[in-house]
């Protein structure tokens, strides 16, 4: 009899240590990623209780959120950041956890580093004290963000309690039009299903649109699952997944890789797999998409006007009105032409090599508008190194973009990279929340890296399809 379980339920069952009478699962965690913001208090809990890290070889740390991207000399000028850096160094040393620090050469945003190193593999359960852990689902793993108490639990036991979510299959079929990227696909899905639409669900992304995507594009999609309310989103492993993992430092090697491949591919949801819900979209309905508001669902296709409140459901009007007021935009106006002050290319959503290549292709031969500050922040030291080997940094610098060190940077502005006052930022990151980019009144427009590059050059939001460098 065929196994009608979807990938999520196969992987969940495999990792179930026990089920409590209240139906909570004690789930074994295959990979625990650590960073400097959500771990110090967790290590302190272990210290208080006299506990050790149970599975040090399943635990790996890096530093990303507070890392300065311009001057990385120690001690950091921000003494609080320096204190956090010292804390993770001391904690990892004392508890025997591998730390990929600034001197290592492999440091970067935890969700870029995991896949890059081959740590992230199909069939694993992966957690990190960071909501964008959903990124790792691109490999067909169950990957979820957790809080600091959970980090302590996983450090001490390699397990945690979770309620099993339902699984919704989100099908997108068809080819993406030129100028439409993975970022636009996930922004479109969130726009249609809402920021709370995925609460209680894991998302399986399926269909020919995702099949055609590269692993990096799939990571962009899964990364933003949490912005649609789904703690976890995944794509079934296929030949592209296997090819990506082949030869990576932490990937299985030799005969073991072959055995692993067979197992990985066997986990994919079958044609007759069962789901709790299904939603279908057409790729041809998706155009370059830009957020205009203060939640990732408040977006429009670039050719569309902002909503008109009287045409929206009554229950939504307060929030939409709050968003329009904060953003200084009027109902019904186009998003196209919105002036920007800052352009940010980077983040765990869009800070990988393919993102930088595409942004550089757009930027090549142009100049950043005189009133715009534009920065490019690679997702990891290895992405940075690769980009420099390809000469991308020279293209960016010639166009007037600043070329920075690796980290989270202006996605959440815990480091010195911040908006000032009411600046408007075209950003390839994942959140347009009020104050997200470091200024309480700063404003964020989320879009693809190509759209950010074009906006930087024009000084305003433009349609990448009319920018003249879209390849059919």
């Amino acid at each position, binding site marked *: 009899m065929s196994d009608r379980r979807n990938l999520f339920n196969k992987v969940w069952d*495999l*990792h179930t*240590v*026990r089920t*409590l009478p*209240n*139906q909570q699962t*004690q789930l*074994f965690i*295959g990979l625990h990623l650590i960073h400097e913001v*959500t771990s*110090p*208090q967790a290590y*302190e*809990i272990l210290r208080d209780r006299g506990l050790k890290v*149970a599975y040090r070889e399943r635990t790996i740390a890096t530093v990303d*959120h*507070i890392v300065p991207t311009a001057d990385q000399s120690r001690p950091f000028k*921000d003494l609080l950041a320096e204190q*956090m850096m010292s*804390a993770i160094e001391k904690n990892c040393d004392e508890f025997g956890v591998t730390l990929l620090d600034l001197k290592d050469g492999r440091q970067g945003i935890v969700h870029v580093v995991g896949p890059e190193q081959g740590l992230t*593999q199909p*069939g694993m359960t992966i957690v990190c*004290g*960071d*909501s964008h852990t959903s990124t790792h689902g691109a490999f067909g793993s169950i990957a979820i963000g*957790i*809080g*600091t*108490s959970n980090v302590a*639990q996983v450090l*001490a*036991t390699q*397990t*945690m*309690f979770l309620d099993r979510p339902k699984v919704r299959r989100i099908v997108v079929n068809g080819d993406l039009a030129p100028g439409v990227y993975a970022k636009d696909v996930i922004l479109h899905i969130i726009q249609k299903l809402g*920021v*709370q639409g995925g*609460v*209680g669900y894991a998302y399986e992304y399926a269909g020919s649109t995702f099949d055609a995507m590269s692993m990096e594009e799939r990571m962009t999609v899964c990364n933003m699952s*949490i912005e649609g*309310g789904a*703690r976890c989103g995944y794509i079934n492993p296929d030949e592209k997944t296997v090819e990506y993992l082949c030869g990576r430092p932490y990937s*299985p090697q030799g005969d*073991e890789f072959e*055995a*692993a491949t*067979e*197992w990985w591919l066997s986990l994919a949801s079958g044609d007759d797999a069962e789901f709790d819900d299904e939603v279908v979209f057409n790729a041809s309905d998706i155009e370059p998409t830009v957020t205009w508001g203060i*939640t990732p669902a408040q977006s429009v296709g670039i050719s569309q006007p902002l909503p008109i409140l009287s045409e929206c459901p009554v229950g939504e009007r*307060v*929030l939409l009105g709050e968003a329009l007021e904060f953003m200084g935009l009027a109902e019904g106006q186009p998003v196209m032409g919105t002036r920007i002050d800052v352009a940010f290319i980077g983040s765990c959503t869009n800070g990988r090599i393919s993102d930088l290549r595409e942004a550089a292709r757009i930027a090549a031969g142009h100049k950043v508008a005189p009133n715009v500050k534009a920065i490019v922040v690679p997702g990891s030291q290895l992405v940075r190194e690769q980009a420099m080997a390809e000469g991308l940094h020279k293209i960016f610098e010639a166009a007037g973009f600043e070329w920075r060190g690796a980290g989270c940077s202006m996605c959440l502005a*815990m480091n010195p990279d911040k908006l000032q006052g009411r600046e408007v930022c075209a950003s390839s990151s994942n*959140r347009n*929340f*009020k*104050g*997200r980019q*470091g200024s*309480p009144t700063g404003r964020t427009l989320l879009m693809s890296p190509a759209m950010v590059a074009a906006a930087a050059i024009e000084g305003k939001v433009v349609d990448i399809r009319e920018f003249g460098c879209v390849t059919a």
Partner: protein
Amino acid sequence: MSTKIKSVSGTGIPLLLDDIDTDRIIPARYLRCVTFEGLGEFAFEDDRQQDPNHPFDKAEYKGSSVLIAGRNFGCGSSREHAPQSLMRWGIKAIVAESFAEIFFGNCSSLGIVAVRATREDLQTLGAAIESNPTTQLKVDLESLTVTAGDISVSVEMADSARDALVTGEWDYLGQLLSAADQVTAHAATIPYLNGFTK
């Protein structure tokens, strides 16, 4: 075993807005710390700076322990600093239309009661608090009700989280540790921990 939390009583504070994310509850600059101590005073810091009428600044709501919130409360970042800051401000229970999952899980770990009510009932509770901020609320996990003076509304909560609070078994770390032998045995069955030979 932790303290059994069967109910929370106290005055309420209304903040009936939707999609309140954890960046708003505690802005990222306050995450530059290695302890959660002192976060209470910065709850909703940026919203308070921009809204002179923010409930968290109003004298009549000081000392409240029950927060009335809207849909998808606590969405976004996984930062436990968010419920920590609310808890340290004085919040012991949150009644909302719905919660983001990571935030809800963090509340469970901290012993913060997080229950769901209908929009209509939340508006009723909010109006009662606004008209008389000294109104005593009781969030009762055994009867799954919230009372405020003469008003009583039904609320919902995941059984697992409710049981843990009511029985005092929300020290999840202790429970997880108690199954250490089972964990070791289970790890031996997972393919990628065993050379993909299982």
